C-alpha cells in the first residue's frame, strides 16, 4: 500500500513533468542550443558578436534595458511609497475612494495603456496640443517619446507594485511599535526613518526586484514609444523579424540570464528570515488631519492623482467613440459616434480578433486550470524527491520575459517534435494558446498553492476514513475547497491572456490574430478609434472578471498582482 501511495504520486507527477519538460524546459534548451549555432554549426560567434563591436547595438540595448529598469524602479518607488503612506496613514475626506483609484493602472493591458499615453502626451497628443492652443504657443510645449516616454509609462504601470506592498506592510505594522518610539522621545521624522522604514524594507526590496524584472521584460512601451531607442526585449523581436533566429536566441539567452538571476535572488531574499510582526490583526491607525491647509492639500493631491491616473482610461473611452476618418490631420477629433462598437458586431473582419482572443484565452485557461490544480496538489500534498526542482521549473515561465517565452516556442516548434505530436506548430492556430498557457502557469499554480496550504491534511484523511477513495475525495472534497483560489488565478490568467501582446506579436498568424495584434494593425492604419474600441473591449473584459472575482470569490484586486 505504501507503494500504492507512491504510485498515485507518480501518476500525478508524470503529466505534470511531461508538460513542464515539453513546453518549458525543452523550448528553453532549444533556444540555448540555437544561440550556440552560426549558420547551423556550433560556435560562440553569436556571443562574441553580442559583446563585441560587430553589433554594438546589442550591447547598447542591454545597457539601455538595465538602466531604464533601474530608473523605473526609482520612479515607481518615488510615486508609490509616499502615496501609500499618505493614503494609509492620514484620514481626510475621500481617502478610501482615492486609495481605490490608486490601483487603477492594473486594469489597463500594457499595449492599451501605452496607446492611451501616446494619444494623451505624444507629439500629436491631446494634452500638449491643448496647452499649446490655450497658451497660444507656436509649438507643443512638451511631448513624450523615446526614453522619457518609456519611463513615464513604466512609472504609471509599475508604481502599483510599490503602492500595494507599502500599503499592506504599513497595515501590518503594530502601531504600538511606533507609539513606543514616540513614548521614548523620538520625533515624527526619526520614528519614520528608524522604526517604520526598516520594517517596510523587506517588502520594498521585493517590490524593487519585481519592478526591475517587469521592466526588463517590458515590450509594449518600447514597441510603441522607443523610436530609435534600443532595448533588449525589442531587439529580440527585430532579430526575429529579420530572420536572424540565431541572434534572437542569443539575445533571449542573455535576457533570460538576467531575469532568472533576479528570480533566484528574490527567492533567496524571501527565504531569509525577515522581521515578521509578532502581533497580528491590529488595524492601521490613521491620524486625523486637523490642520485645514494640510487637509485640503491632501485632498487636492488625491484629486490630482485621480485625474492623472484616470486620464488614460477616459482618453481611451473618448477615442473609441471617434469614427474612422474623423481625426486625421485635425488637432482634435471632429466627430463622435458608436460606429466602432457597432462595427464590431456587424463586420466579421473586425469581430474575428475579439473572438480569437476569447477562444484562445479560454483554451489556455482550461489548460492552466487543470494543470494548476494537479501541479499544486502534487507540490503541496505529496512527498517526492526533487520537489524543489519542480517548484523552480514551474516558476521559470514567470521569470522569463514574454518575448523570450515566444522565442523559445518558435525555436522549439518550428520543426516537428514529440511534444507537438510530430507537427510543426509555428504558423498554426495552436501555438498562441500554447504560449498563453505557458505564460500563465505560474499565476494559477501560485494562487492554488496558497489555498491548498491553508487546507489541513486531516480534511482529506477524514474523507478517507469515512470510506471515500482517493479520487472521490479529490473530486468532492479537495477541489470544492480550493476552487476559489484556482478560479481567481484562472480568471486573472484569462484577463492577461486577452491583453497579452509580446508573445502574440511573435506568434500570431492571419487567422488567429488576437485583439492586441488588431490594435497594432489599426494603429498602423491610423484608425485610432477602432484601436481604442478594441482597447475598451479588453478593459471591459478585465473589469467584468475583476468584479466577478471580487463579488463571488472574495478576491481583492490588491491580491491579484
Amino acid at each position, binding site marked *: *500500500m*505504501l507503494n*500504492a501511495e507512491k504510485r498515485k504520486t507518480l501518476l500525478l507527477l508524470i503529466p505534470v513533468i511531461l508538460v513542464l519538460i515539453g513546453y518549458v524546459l525543452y523550448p528553453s534548451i532549444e533556444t540555448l542550443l540555437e544561440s550556440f549555432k552560426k549558420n547551423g554549426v556550433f560556435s560562440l560567434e553569436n556571443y562574441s558578436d553580442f559583446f563585441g563591436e560587430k553589433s554594438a547595438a546589442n550591447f547598447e540595448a542591454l545597457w539601455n534595458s538595465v538602466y531604464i529598469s533601474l530608473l523605473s524602479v526609482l520612479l515607481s518607488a518615488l510615486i508609490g511609497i509616499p502615496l501609500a503612506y499618505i493614503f494609509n496613514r492620514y484620514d481626510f475626506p475621500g481617502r478610501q475612494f482615492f486609495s481605490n483609484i490608486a490601483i487603477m493602472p492594473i486594469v489597463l493591458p500594457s499595449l492599451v495603456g501605452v496607446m492611451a499615453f501616446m494619444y494623451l502626451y505624444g507629439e500629436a497628443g491631446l494634452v500638449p496640443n491643448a496647452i499649446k492652443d490655450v497658451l497660444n504657443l507656436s509649438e507643443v510645449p512638451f511631448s513624450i517619446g523615446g526614453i522619457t516616454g518609456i519611463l513615464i509609462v513604466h512609472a504609471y504601470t509599475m508604481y502599483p507594485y510599490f503602492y500595494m506592498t507599502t500599503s499592506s506592510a504599513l497595515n501590518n505594522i503594530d502601531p504600538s511599535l511606533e507609539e513606543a518610539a514616540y513614548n521614548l522621545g523620538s520625533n515624527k521624522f526619526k520614528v519614520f526613518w528608524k522604526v517604520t522604514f526598516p520594517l517596510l524594507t523587506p517588502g520594498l526590496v521585493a517590490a524593487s526586484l519585481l519592478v526591475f524584472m517587469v521592466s526588463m521584460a517590458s515590450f509594449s512601451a518600447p514597441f510603441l514609444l522607443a523610436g530609435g531607442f534600443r532595448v533588449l526585449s525589442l531587439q529580440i523581436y527585430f532579430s526575429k523579424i529579420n530572420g536572424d533566429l540565431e541572434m534572437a536566441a542569443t539575445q533571449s539567452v542573455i535576457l533570460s540570464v538576467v531575469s532568472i538571476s533576479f528570480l533566484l535572488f528574490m527567492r533567496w531574499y524571501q527565504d531569509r528570515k525577515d522581521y515578521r510582526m509578532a502581533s497580528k490583526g491590529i488595524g492601521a491607525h490613521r491620524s486625523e488631519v486637523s490642520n485645514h491647509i494640510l487637509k485640503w492639500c491632501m485632498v487636492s493631491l488625491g484629486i490630482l492623482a485621480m485625474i492623472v491616473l484616470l486620464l488614460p482610461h477616459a482618453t481611451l473611452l473618448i477615442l473609441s467613440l471617434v469614427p474612422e476618418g474623423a481625426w486625421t490631420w485635425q488637432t482634435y477629433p471632429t466627430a463622435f459616434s458608436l460606429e466602432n462598437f457597432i462595427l464590431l458586431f456587424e463586420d466579421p473582419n473586425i469581430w474575428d480578433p475579439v473572438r480569437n482572443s476569447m477562444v484562445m484565452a479560454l483554451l489556455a485557461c482550461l489548460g492552466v486550470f487543470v494543470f494548476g490544480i494537479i501541479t499544486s496538489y502534487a507540490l503541496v500534498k505529496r512527498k517526492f524527491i526533487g520537489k524543489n526542482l519542480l517548484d523552480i521549473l514551474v516558476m521559470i515561465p514567470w521569470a522569463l520575459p514574454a518575448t523570450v517565452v515566444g522565442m523559445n516556442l518558435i525555436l522549439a516548434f518550428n520543426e516537428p517534435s514529440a511534444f507537438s505530436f510530430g507537427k510543426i506548430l509555428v504558423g498554426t492556430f495552436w501555438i498562441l494558446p500554447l504560449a498563453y498557457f505557458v505564460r500563465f502557469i505560474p499565476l494559477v499554480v501560485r494562487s492554488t498553492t496558497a489555498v491548498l496550504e491553508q487546507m*489541513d491534511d*486531516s*480534511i482529506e*484523511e*477524514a*474523507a*478517507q*476514513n*469515512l*470510506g*471515500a*477513495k482517493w479520487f*472521490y475525495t479529490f473530486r*468532492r*472534497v479537495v477541489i*470544492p*475547497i480550493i476552487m476559489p483560489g484556482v478560479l481567481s488565478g484562472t480568471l486573472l490568467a484569462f484577463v492577461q491572456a486577452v491583453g497579452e501582446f509580446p508573445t502574440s506579436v511573435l506568434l500570431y498568424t492571419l487567422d488567429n490574430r488576437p485583439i492586441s495584434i488588431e490594435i497594432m494593425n489599426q494603429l498602423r492604419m491610423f484608425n485610432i478609434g477602432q484601436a481604442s474600441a478594441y482597447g475598451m473591449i479588453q478593459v471591459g473584459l478585465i473589469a467584468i472578471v475583476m468584479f466577478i472575482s471580487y463579488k463571488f470569490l472574495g478576491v481583492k484586486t490588491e491580491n491579484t498582482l
Partner: protein
Amino acid sequence: MSTVNLSAITKQFGDVTAVEELDILIKEGEFFTFLGPSGCGKTTTLRMIAGFYYPTKGKVTFNDKDMTTVPPEKRNTGMVFQNYALFPHMTVFENVAFGLKVRKITKSQTKKRVEDILKKVRLDQYMDRQVSQLSGGQQQRVALARALVIEPDILLLDEPLSNLDARLRDEMRNEILRLQRDYGITTIYVTHDQAEALTMSDRIAVFNMGKCQQVGTPTEIYNQPVNDFVAEFIGETNLIPIAFKEEKNNEKIYHCEQLDADIQVQATEVNIAEYNRNDQLLMSIRPESVQIDKASLTGENVFKGEVILVQFTGASVHTYIKLSSDAIIRATDLNEGPSTYLTNGSKVNVKLPADQIRVIPKARM
C-alpha cells in the same frame, strides 16, 4: 464492532522510532484510552489503526482479520480528529451524510439516519447550517455524528476535547460516554489529560517514549503502577529510593538511605511491583496516604519531620514535610477548617503505612 489486536508494532520515521514493540489487545465494546505525555506515540499508534500509517514491523488485526496494510477507506473505522476536520464547503447535513453517500446508501435511508444521529447529538435544528457557523462544541458534535453515522467497527478519537474550554469539555465527556454506551462501540481514545483518562476509560494504556508502560483499569493504573514513570504521570506521588534488605513474616524490609532507616512494606502483589534483581527500586506513596500528626503516632514507618510549606488549594491542603536533609514528603488532607492547618516550622510525626506503600522499579529506558 471489533476487537483490535496490535502485535509487536514498531513505527519508524527515518531515524525516529515513534512506537516500539507495542502489544495491545482491545476488547469488543471497550472504552480504551491511550495516555501519555506529548510526543510519546499515541497519535502514531491511532493512525496505524486507522490506516494512515503502516507499521514498519508488526501486525494490526481486527477480529482476527489482518488489517496491517488495508487502506484507510476499507477499514470501517470512524475517526474524530483533534481539529474536527469538518468539510468547510458542506452543511452539517452534508458533512454527516458524506460517509453514507460514499457507501451508496439510498437518499431516504441517508436522510433518516443523519436525522437520527443529529438528534442524538442534539444538533437536529442546525442541520442546514454551514459548519463554519457553529461553535466549537457544536462542531465537535458534528464530527462525532459524522464518525458514528457510518456505524463503524471502531471509533477513534484523537484528543477530541483539547480545543474546548473546561466546562464544555466536561459536558462533551459525558456526551461521548453516553453515545459510546448507547452504541456499545469499541472506542479508542487518545489524551494526555489523566483526569479524563481515569474518569472515562474501561482500560488505559500508558505510553512513554514510544513504549507502552502499562495496560490496566483506571484503579489498577493508579493503585498498582508498574514503575516510577506511571506512578508519577498518573496522579501525585512521593518517590524515595530504597534497597531490598530482608523478608520477614508477611513483610519485606527495605533500607532507605535518605532517611537512614528501614521501611516495612506488606509483601502482597498490591504493594510490591514485579522487578528484577538489578533494578533500582523506589517506594511510592500517594500524598493522601501519608499520615501526619503533631502528637506521637504508633506503628511502623514513623518519622519525625518539620513542616516547610503549607499550600491551600480549596478542597484539600498540601503539607510539605522535611524528613531529612534530602527527603521531602508531601501529604494531602481534606480541608477540615483553619484550626487543622499546620504552620511552617512545626515539628510533626509522619507515618507511611505499610499497606499504602508501593515498591516499584525505575522505568527502563
